[in-house]
């Protein structure tokens, strides 16, 4: 029974934790612009993150070592440092976008400008990292993030013509008036949103923080294989609501208020309340995860003591990195740069950085020295290899597409 509760909680947490500011923005934008013609990308991205998160969780549980620690052992100091710099930069942009996302959610609830909220939200994120136990933190924000289920309810209440939805999901075309390059650019962004690398750093470090062992492998598998696909359904619901309401009216999504608009029309004040709680929890949770990830990957590269399982004085450099990242992230947002733009760029750069994370994981998950008989099976390797190719293609295409399409304009 206790086991069952743990598994259920883990799955619910994975669902709530799947969606962050990048998913909110990318899915809403794509739905309003392309309808259901890019829905397949979410499917591909969800399978990809399942494949690699399962590997990363298994590596962490069997070897009790987090991913970035092993990245350095297998890439060597120089390549791992280049990887660290690039990953830290992308992670930092994502952190800034999430911190802005929390403030934007509060703005929608209070009509007080998001810029005024930034100092408070950053402080709150830091306090949670400083004082709250890892599992408590994960559970609270993951479960609260579940209230984004309002998107799915809203989509259903909007009464889509299911036949035509399924048809356009399964027969995607580039809509008239959109170039192929623009279509592919948004495909890459959406893919970057689903497979954001910090999810893997966080997932594997979290597994070590929670002291997973090989006994937890089934829990790992259940969390990933049930939780992430259900999270993907939330993403598709966001896309569906904007496709049904905003697309026919020629509305492009430029802010978070518009992301909520279709669901507000469908469900009214109660729906809005759920969405605002969901926005807040999802972005707050992701801000915690990215802030911690910044500390995790740098500490793991240098072999410093890291993690929330020890007192802050015992991991001073880890906490210093987290603190500095948060302060810098808040400062970036306070320059009043458009937070939605920051989010969009963080997605493209995530897509660019994908192979840096996923290539070493695939190698390590095959290494018997680390995996003690739990190396990848045929299915994991076949899927891993296919996704490695997809990830390489997406990464190579990200910047050229951004230039050609002027970032999707």
């Amino acid at each position, binding site marked *: 029974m206790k086991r069952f509760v743990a598994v259920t909680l883990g799955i619910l947490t994975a669902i709530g934790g799947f969606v962050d500011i990048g998913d909110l923005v990318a899915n809403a934008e794509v739905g309003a612009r392309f309808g259901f013609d890019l829905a397949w990308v979410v499917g591909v991205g969800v399978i990809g993150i399942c494949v690699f998160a399962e590997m990363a969780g298994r590596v962490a549980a069997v070897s009790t070592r987090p991913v970035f620690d092993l990245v350095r052992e297998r890439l060597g100091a120089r390549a791992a440092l280049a990887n660290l710099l*690039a990953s830290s930069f992308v992670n930092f942009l994502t952190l800034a976008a999430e911190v802005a996302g929390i403030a934007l959610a509060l703005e*929608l609830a209070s*009509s007080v400008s998001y810029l005024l909220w930034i100092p408070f939200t950053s402080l709150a994120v830091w306090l949670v990292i400083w004082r709250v136990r890892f599992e408590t933190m994960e559970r609270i924000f993951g479960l609260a993030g579940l209230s984004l289920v309002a998107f799915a309810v809203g989509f259903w209440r909007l009464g889509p013509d299911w036949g035509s939805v399924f048809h356009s999901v399964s027969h995607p075309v580039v809509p008239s008036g959109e170039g192929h390059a623009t279509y592919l650019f948004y495909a890459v962004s959406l893919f970057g949103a689903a497979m954001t690398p910090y999810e893997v750093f966080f997932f594997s470090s979290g597994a070590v923080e929670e002291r997973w062992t090989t006994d937890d492998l089934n829990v790992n598998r259940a969390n990933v294989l049930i939780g992430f696909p259900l999270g993907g359904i939330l993403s598709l619901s966001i896309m569906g609501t904007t496709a049904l*309401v905003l697309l026919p*009216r020629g509305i*492009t999504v430029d*802010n978070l208020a518009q992301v909520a*608009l279709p669901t507000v029309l469908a469900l009214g004040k109660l729906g809005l309340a759920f969405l605002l709680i969901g926005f807040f929890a999802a972005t707050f949770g992701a801000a915690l995860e990215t802030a911690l990830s910044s500390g995790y990957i740098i500490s793991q590269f240098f072999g410093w003591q890291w993690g929330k399982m020890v007192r802050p004085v015992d991991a001073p450099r880890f906490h210093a990195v987290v603190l500095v990242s948060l302060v810098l992230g808040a400062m970036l947002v306070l320059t009043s740069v458009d937070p939605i733009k920051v989010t969009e760029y963080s997605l493209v*750069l995530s897509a660019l950085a994908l192979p840096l994370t996923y290539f070493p994981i695939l190698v390590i998950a095959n290494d018997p020295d680390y995996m003690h008989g739990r190396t990848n099976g045929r299915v994991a390797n076949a899927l891993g290899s296919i996704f490695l190719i997809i990830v390489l293609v997406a990464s190579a295409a990200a910047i050229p597409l951004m230039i050609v399409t002027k970032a999707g304009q």
Partner: protein
Amino acid sequence: MRIRVAGALGLLVLGGCVGPARTTDDYTRKASTSVHDVHSAVETARLGVDAVARDRTTGPYVSVLLGQAEEQATSVQSTFDSVQPPNEDADRLRDEVDGLLTQAVSVLGDVRIAARRGDTDGITGRGPALADISKRLSDLEDRLG
């Protein structure tokens, strides 16, 4: 790697700029895009007004939604105004587009003010004006192609 990131950052900056319009075609395309984007803001506001009329939303949310619609329209207009028209045909187009955008921004401003005051009737009363400006923007966009 670092060079690629630096390049991406450079684009981040360049992305927000508008290039000069060299030909009438080019200018017409820019006009069309601007009309399209302001139309999007007006339609957003209409949905917001609709939500207020049906009592489906809260004051703070709708005031942010309408404020951002106005902001969006204002920024599109000032970007469009900063493009140099290449010839006299373009001048005429500029006057027409700019006139319509000004009206759109003005109506959006009225709705936003009503929303900040929590004046529900003031918001819903602007519905017809928004519908009218939306239609005119959409007609102009069709004409520009």
